């Protein structure tokens, strides 16, 4: 019964989404604000209905109700509760429902806290958000119903895909979707601005918190996914440039460009048309990613939903929204007045350059991802575009951008002083250069790019810190005054610097990966293997039973100069229901580096094939991403960006007047 209620709630949500979209748009035509106001309760109602529907599916999974096809195919009664819950979105139908839930949640957020928004803008934003909801609710109801029943119901489920039985599944997709789908609201704001034909700094101030939330979650989601792959796949790779990953990277690149350009728009009322374009681009890439992943066009061995009917449906949605918004853009963008003039050497100019590099990188990823598909369509020829290509094109572009980061951050608005910036960054540049040269000298004949990247990383970190210091420190001030000056600095300045430090930290982790070492060897018990600065001894190999799997566990001890520093238990996990084996890597974090061990087959003499890696500073890769997200969060906490803050609601200047902070 609860399952049917869930299905019904989803249909109800569609009806509410129709109201949410059509009535306000009609109202906007008639210039009738009371019709526009209908969007608010409709958006809240739509969210409640989708939430109820999602809760029903969670309930069915928790209850192991195998009469529901989705539960029978993706769950098992013996699975731990946490995987029963995360299994809800570990499949096409359920993850689509999560997608729509988050879509509705962002709409509800605007409806609930958007009292400060001009009525017409809010109505139009919610209407566009409603249009997106309609498309995806129709998609779920028509092609991917998660509530379909089975008759007769099986006694036991097929179990969740073993690789997905991991904490990663509980965290990674919700975060990633919060990011992906979060850009929908940015898109809706852009579309609403185009419909109204009016955009100003206030618009930028309203949209920025949403863009930052989406960006933070996308950053964390990508990093989490990368770490998940790292510890699951058994050889320590963390980024593969494969189409599915690229699908998440493209909205991130466009979104990163957006949060920078929207800052220009908010402060200086410039780059309006471009910012709108980026908003459309970011969400278009989110949609493209959804299409690539779920349509089956990418690869024939895809385990996730390769139903051509679904592919055509999403392609239609894609064409409708991207095409529609671009037509709207072409019609209305020329009407948007350009504001805020600036000199080429200025913060604005630097951000234009930042946008140029980020969008170019995005275009490179896009080409590399879709070129093989297009080429095969037109000529029948099959090629592969893999990591070496992306490292060469996009990697180089991003390195150049990294060089520009501290410079842009140090430039003043309107008209900057390049000479002064160079003086301020001298220390950072010198330290970076010196470390690069030293590293290259120590590892002579080693990798070339890695020392450069490491030097660049230090330069970014120190450059960002010295930029903060330059804004706080003045000669002759007491400690108390300095603290007061630091506190007076807007949080967004701290956040921006922190996010850039995060970039440097990640880059340092990536550079360090070139200096790791590996040992792949058949090892007897008690035999020690040297890897990096440590030695690893295999102690024993035993069997261990889990709730729905069997583990072959190796115990190993890590020593440094004979002293035990850690022990690890790499394992091979065999799942009985699906007859599959996964690798459970044994990982010990030593400072910021990691010893990574994975086991292979056992020999007849009791020896075991072992892959051992020393990965220096590897944790910095993900730590850096967390710092970036934290920086984004700090920007979000900045007073002037607090969304729906009560104070300005009363004394709001008329729309179109310059924003005050």
């Amino acid at each position, binding site marked *: 019964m609860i399952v049917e209620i869930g299905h019904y709630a989803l249909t109800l949500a569609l009806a509410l989404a129709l109201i949410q979209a059509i009535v306000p748009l009609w109202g906007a035509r008639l210039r009738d604000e009371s019709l526009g106001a209908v969007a608010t309760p409709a958006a809240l109602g739509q969210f409640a209905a989708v939430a109820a529907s999602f809760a029903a599916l969670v309930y069915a999974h928790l209850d192991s109700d195998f009469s529901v096809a989705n539960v029978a195919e993706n769950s098992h009664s013996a699975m731990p509760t946490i995987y029963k819950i995360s299994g809800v979105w570990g499949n096409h139908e359920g993850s689509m429902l999560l997608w729509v839930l988050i879509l509705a949640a962002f709409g509800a957020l605007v409806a609930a806290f958007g009292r400060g928004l001009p009525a017409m803008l809010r109505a139009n934003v919610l209407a566009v958000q409603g249009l997106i909801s309609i498309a995806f609710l129709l998609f779920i109801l028509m092609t991917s119903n998660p509530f379909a029943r089975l008759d007769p119901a099986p006694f036991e489920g097929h179990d969740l895909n073993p690789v997905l039985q991991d904490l990663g599944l509980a965290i990674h997709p919700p975060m990633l979707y919060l990011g992906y789908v979060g850009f929908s609201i940015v898109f809706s704001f852009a579309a609403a601005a185009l419909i109204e034909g009016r955009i100003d700094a206030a618009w930028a101030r309203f949209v920025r918190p949403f863009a930052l939330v989406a960006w933070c979650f996308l950053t964390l989601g990508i990093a989490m996914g990368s770490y998940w792959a790292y510890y699951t796949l058994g050889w320590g790779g963390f980024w593969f440039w494969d189409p599915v990953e690229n699908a998440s990277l493209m909205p991130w690149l466009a979104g990163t460009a957006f949060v920078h350009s929207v800052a220009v728009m908010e402060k200086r009322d410039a780059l309006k048309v471009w910012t709108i374009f980026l908003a459309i681009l970011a969400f278009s890439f989110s949609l493209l990613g959804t299409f690539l992943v779920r349509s089956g066009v990418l690869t024939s*061995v895809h385990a996730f939903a390769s139903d051509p009917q679904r592919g055509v449906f999403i392609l239609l949605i894609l064409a409708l929204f991207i095409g529609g918004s671009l037509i709207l853009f072409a019609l209305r963008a020329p009407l948007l007045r350009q504001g805020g003039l600036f000199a080429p050497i200025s913060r604005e100019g630097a951000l234009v350059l930042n946008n140029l590099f980020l969008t170019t990188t995005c275009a490179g990823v896009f*080409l590399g991802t879709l070129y093989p598909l297009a080429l095969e369509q037109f000529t029948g020829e099959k090629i592969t*575009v893999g990591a070496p290509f992306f490292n060469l094109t996009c990697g180089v572009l991003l390195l150049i951008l990294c060089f520009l980061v501290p410079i842009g951050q140090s430039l003043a608005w309107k008209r900057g002083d390049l000479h002064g910036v160079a003086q301020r960054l001298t220390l950072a540049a010198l330290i970076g250069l010196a470390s690069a040269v030293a590293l290259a000298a120590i590892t002579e004949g080693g990798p070339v790019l890695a020392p450069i990247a490491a030097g660049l990383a230090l330069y970014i970190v120190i450059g960002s810190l010295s930029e903060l210091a330059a804004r706080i420190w003045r000669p002759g001030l007491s400690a108390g005054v300095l603290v007061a000056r630091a506190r007076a600095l807007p949080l967004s300045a701290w956040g921006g610097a922190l996010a850039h430090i995060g970039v440097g930290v990640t880059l340092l982790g990536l550079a360090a990966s070139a200096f790791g070492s590996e040992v792949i060897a058949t090892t007897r018990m008690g035999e020690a293997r040297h890897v990096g600065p440590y030695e690893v001894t295999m102690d024993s190999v035993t069997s261990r039973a889990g709730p729905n799997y069997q583990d072959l566990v190796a115990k190993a001890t890590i020593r440094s100069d004979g002293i035990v520093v850690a022990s690890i238990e790499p394992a091979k996990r065999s799942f009985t229901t699906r007859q599959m084996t996964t690798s459970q890597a044994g990982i010990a974090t030593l400072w910021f580096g990691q010893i990574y061990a994975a086991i292979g087959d056992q020999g007849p003499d009791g020896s075991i094939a072992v892959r051992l890696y020393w990965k220096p500073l590897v944790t910095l890769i993900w730590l850096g991403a967390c710092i970036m997200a934290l920086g984004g969060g700090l920007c979000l906490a900045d007073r002037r960006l607090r969304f729906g803050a009560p104070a300005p609601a009363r004394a709001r200047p008329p729309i179109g007047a310059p924003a005050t902070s």
Partner: protein
Amino acid sequence: MRILRLATILACLIGASPAQAVQPNEMLADTGLEARARDLSAELRCMVCQNQSIDDSDATLARDIRVLIRQRIVKGESNTQIRDFLVSRYGDFILLKPPFKPETLLLWFGAPLVLALGALWIVLGRSRRPTAAPALSAEEEARLAAIQRGE
């Protein structure tokens, strides 16, 4: 979305006995030759996986190619010879780095082209844009005068 990737890798496992990425028993005793084999493997695609190199892949086909590479290295073939042999057998599809040829020119030069066009657009846009706020039109002047007169 990572789920899907992982699922794909799993797909590589289905039907195969769980072989793994490079195993000790496949490796050559000569470290120099083995290093060559590893470098070559990192450039070659596992044909049944998604963008994974054969060095990292768990699939049996990847294992077969790894073994084949090592046999040919031991026979004294150069990296280019081995690569050419594999391309003649499997096509360009096996190379993770697509070759330069007319069909891939747009792929290779696409991003630099976007960069160049973008830079050009910015420069042209700047030179077209006035550096100071535009002067008031005659009509605006008249309105301003009217306002100043207090009408």
